[in-house]
């Protein structure tokens, strides 16, 4: 009950398709059982790198602000945007800096490498251990449910539109089995030359 990572609730998922990735989150922000907002997005992006953050909402905001700072400075110094693989390592080392007083977040990273076009996804624990995955990563209070849904629905090399269907159904049905997740959802489908953002209507209870 007083576990910081499940006070506010919320969940996120990322998937790899054929030359594309998808990343999605719910939009609930709660205070224990009370729903406070249905407009709290948990997916952020720093140019072409997409970043999902679940956990304690305060830390979600703080950690996003921190990485916005770091990626902005990186971009000015290096005169190019950070790549997903590099960003993943930046996340890892930044989280481990707080080994004995962590940010209570469950981050996931997704993106296409701007040079090679290779899809990249990974997840982390709250102290920065990277979980590289070929297929999908999940995070948040509905992560158990998401594992089940993704395991059932995922198949490799899906085209963008099919990947959208796959990730949306996985998220929606997982969130429906979690009291702390749901209240709308947002999905990003990222291909080489286009980013599509879609809001999903979902159960508002």
């Amino acid at each position, binding site marked *: 009950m007083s576990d910081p990572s499940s006070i506010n609730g919320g969940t996120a998922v990322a998937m790899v398709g054929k030359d594309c990735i998808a990343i999605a989150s719910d939009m609930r922000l709660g205070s224990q059982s009370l729903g406070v907002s249905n407009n709290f997005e948990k997916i952020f992006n720093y140019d072409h790198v997409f970043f999902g953050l679940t956990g304690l909402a305060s830390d979600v905001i703080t950690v996003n*602000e*921190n990485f*916005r*700072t770091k990626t*902005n*400075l990186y971009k*000015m110094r290096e*005169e190019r945007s950070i790549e997903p693989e590099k960003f993943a390592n930046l996340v890892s080392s930044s989280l481990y800096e707080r080994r004995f007083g962590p940010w209570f977040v469950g981050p996931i990273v997704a993106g296409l490498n701007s040079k090679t076009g290779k899809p990249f996804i990974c997840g982390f624990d709250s102290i920065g251990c990277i979980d590289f995955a070929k297929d999908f990563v999940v995070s948040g209070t509905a992560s158990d449910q998401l594992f089940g849904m993704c395991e059932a629905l995922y198949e490799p090399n899906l085209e963008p539109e099919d990947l959208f269907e796959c990730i949306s159904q996985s998220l929606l049905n997982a969130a429906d089995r979690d009291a702390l997740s749901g209240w709308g959802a947002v999905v990003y489908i990222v291909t080489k030359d286009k980013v599509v953002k879609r809001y999903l209507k979902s159960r508002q209870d």
Partner: protein
Amino acid sequence: MSRRYDSRTTIFSPEGRLYQVEYALEAINHAGTAIGIMAKDGIAIVAERKVTSKLLEQDSSAEKMYILNENTLCGVAGMTADAGILINYIRESSQEYLKIYNKEPPLEHIVKHVCNLKQGYTQYGGLRPFGVSFLFAGYDDRFGFQLYTSNPSGNYSGWKATSIGANNSSAQTILKQEYKDDLDLEDAKKLALKVLSKTTDSTKLTSEKVEFSTVSLASNGHVQLKIWKPEEIDKLLQESGVLEDTEEDK
């Protein structure tokens, strides 16, 4: 006589001068020129890069133009190494401001901020002042486009058009004659190159010797900061007609 008061930055001479600060200003007066012109729809900054040797590897990225945050860039005259320290300081404090207020800092705020740091070196013991002057060009929603200069003493001032570095007084004389209030960015770009070509010692301007940047607004209202690439500068030099002018003058 002055020798006794030379070595310390923080000691007034009997005439009431701070020699180290004056020396720093003098050093900048020998550095490559930088010229900034503000137009109604943008700002152009042009700077002269001194090429010391043919054998020197040319860095492809700009040495004297730096993006500081979403709304601001700057041109530098003076010691590039010193500038690096200050630019990093400005970038980090801009990001800190963004983190606290979730808004880009107003342009004057960051100018004031870095000038406070510079001022410290004219007062606190033992260290030399930063040997850099800046041209800050940027946009914020309160005052629109703005152009500032700052120097090693920690003073700053806002301008419609100005220059720093070598020959800055002759550049400013020309600017005073040629500047008009209804200038647009295209005019400002051409004027900047024209003034540079007239004040510079080098015979012919090329992208190797010129750095160029602009601040403008995109159609969606976002601030556009652009540090021009060598090819683009060459093309701009060609179009502006300054190349022919200089040859006629010869």
